[in-house]
């Protein structure tokens, strides 16, 4: 039997600064030849000897098998150490884990992708996949919001997304600092939904962001006649150990890290103690 606790060494081959606190790391296994086979929305456990291990979304396209990427924001001690790494440094990788976005269900459907802040991270692989396999999916609408323009991640991807056929990208920020030219929206992400043109009857919605944002997004989607079963959310922010042990991520009886992080809306709705719960 394979030992699931073995961390496989991966080398950092590229680092891209996304925002002041967030970087995207390109990784490649040093020993395994097979690369990483995963579904967008899944995560890896990344470990640094002496500093610990944590769950991080895989942010590259699953079609790029030889390399994979993680987009990590500096928030604590482990991410602080990761932030200091350079190209050529080695990290430990276990994974992929968790449920991904239901890519099979999404085939030939329109995709409505809604994200707040670093919540775009687990959705980037899905977006890139839909762009690379443009005929496998319908229209793609991306609604993305962050606090300020400088907090938007994957900005270097936008031109590529926009130059693909039938993709619409709408942006909004809470606040525009003086002197910044910002032709896009201002306010909450929910405001962007008015720009959506896709027919909810033939679309899936994928959402990741703070739970309070997702709560309002879901409410708006239901008003727009999205079926509950066609709405999927990633609750990845709650995860800690990634192996259904620490209990930090539990929502009622479910572990986000093993039962999720991607859930259908009816699943989370039925659970207690979360902002999407029907009981709230």
């Amino acid at each position, binding site marked *: 039997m394979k030992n699931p606790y073995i961390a496989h060494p991966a080398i950092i081959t590229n680092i891209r600064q996304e925002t002041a606190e967030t970087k995207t790391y390109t990784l490649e296994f040093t020993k395994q030849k097979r690369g990483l086979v995963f579904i967008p929305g899944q995560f890896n456990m990344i470990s640094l000897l002496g500093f610990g291990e944590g769950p991080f979304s895989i942010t590259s396209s699953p079609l790029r098998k030889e390399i994979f990427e993680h987009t990590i924001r500096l928030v604590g001690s482990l991410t602080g150490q990761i932030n200091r790494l350079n190209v050529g440094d080695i990290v430990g990788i276990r994974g992929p884990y968790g449920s991904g976005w239901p890519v099979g269900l999404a085939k030939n459907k329109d995709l409505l992708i809604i994200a707040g802040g670093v919540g775009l991270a687990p959705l980037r692989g899905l977006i890139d996949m839909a762009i690379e396999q443009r005929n496998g999916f319908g229209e793609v609408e991306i609604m993305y919001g962050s606090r300020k323009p400088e907090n938007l991640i994957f900005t270097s991807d936008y031109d590529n997304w926009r130059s693909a056929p039938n993709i619409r990208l*709408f942006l909004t920020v809470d606040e525009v600092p003086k002197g910044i030219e910002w032709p896009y929206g201002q306010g909450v992400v929910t405001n962007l939904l008015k720009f959506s043109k896709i027919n909810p009857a033939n679309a899936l919605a994928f959402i990741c962001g703070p739970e309070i944002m997702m709560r309002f997004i879901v409410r708006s989607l239901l008003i727009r006649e999205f079926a509950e079963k066609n709405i999927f959310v990633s609750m990845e922010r709650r995860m800690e150990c990634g192996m259904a042990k620490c209990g930090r991520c539990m929502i009622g009886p479910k572990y986000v890290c093993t039962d999720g992080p991607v859930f259908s809306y009816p699943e989370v709705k039925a659970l207690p103690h979360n902002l999407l719960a029907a009981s709230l």
Partner: protein
Amino acid sequence: MSVNLSVTLAGIKLKNPVMPASGTFGAGREFSEFFDVGRLGAIVAKTVTLKPREGNMPPRICETTSGMLNSIGLQNEGLEYFLKHDLPYMRKFKIPIIVNIAGNTLEEYAQICRDLKGIEGVSAIELNISCPNIKAGGIAFGASSRLAEQVTAAARYNTDLPLIVKLTPNVYNISKIARAVVSAGADAVSLINTLVGMSIDINTFKPQLANYTGGLSGPAIKPVAVRMVWEVAQTVNVPIIGIGGIMTAEDAIEFFLAGATAVAIGTANFINPTAMIDIINGIERFLSERGLTDIRQLVGKVRL
């Protein structure tokens, strides 16, 4: 057998798919002496800017082989005058009014969109990001996919009206620009604007236009326009207004076959003021002669 010429364009219902190209029809005053403007599918006003513009020095128009060069330079009285005098006049025709706007900066486009909010009779906004005759803005916005995307966004986030973006042919890859403006929320695209050209008087050795260069329109550019409409129709799924050298119903039919949902007539109006009416009647005749009942049976139906 009756023929249905009505189309829906960016959410606006048009009783027929024929309209004037912006800048060739003013607000319709001069043409109303020749025909009932209310018969058109829509009226597209001449480009309006935030502040009045004097335009370029004359001469500003010259004839070329199968075409016309112009370098008017977006002469207009400004938005305030437009709202007070031209728009109320156009409302009389009781057909959809498409207001064509241009700005020197993103903020000017945004401002005009905000000022048009809730104004009675405005059915849609067309962004002119392709005028070759002005120094700041204009074609600079339309020739870069990034700027085209940004100017579309500047309008998109400031209006709930249907948004049409008029594209310039003076680019290497017009499909890329079309995709960029659609990605920012354009509801339709219109193409093509004029091709930058120049004509020299061999007796005086001087350019024919005081601005030296101008925009070429007329039958000379039609094959370029048909090709571009066809290309763009392959890559975006928003409706297209086909423009470029349409003189007759047969010309218009080519654009429908290439993928246009509607057509706009420009230079032909200067030669025959009732050209648009002749084209509407001609399209109807073309359809009924072939036993077709709906203009949509032509859209994108080129056989490859």
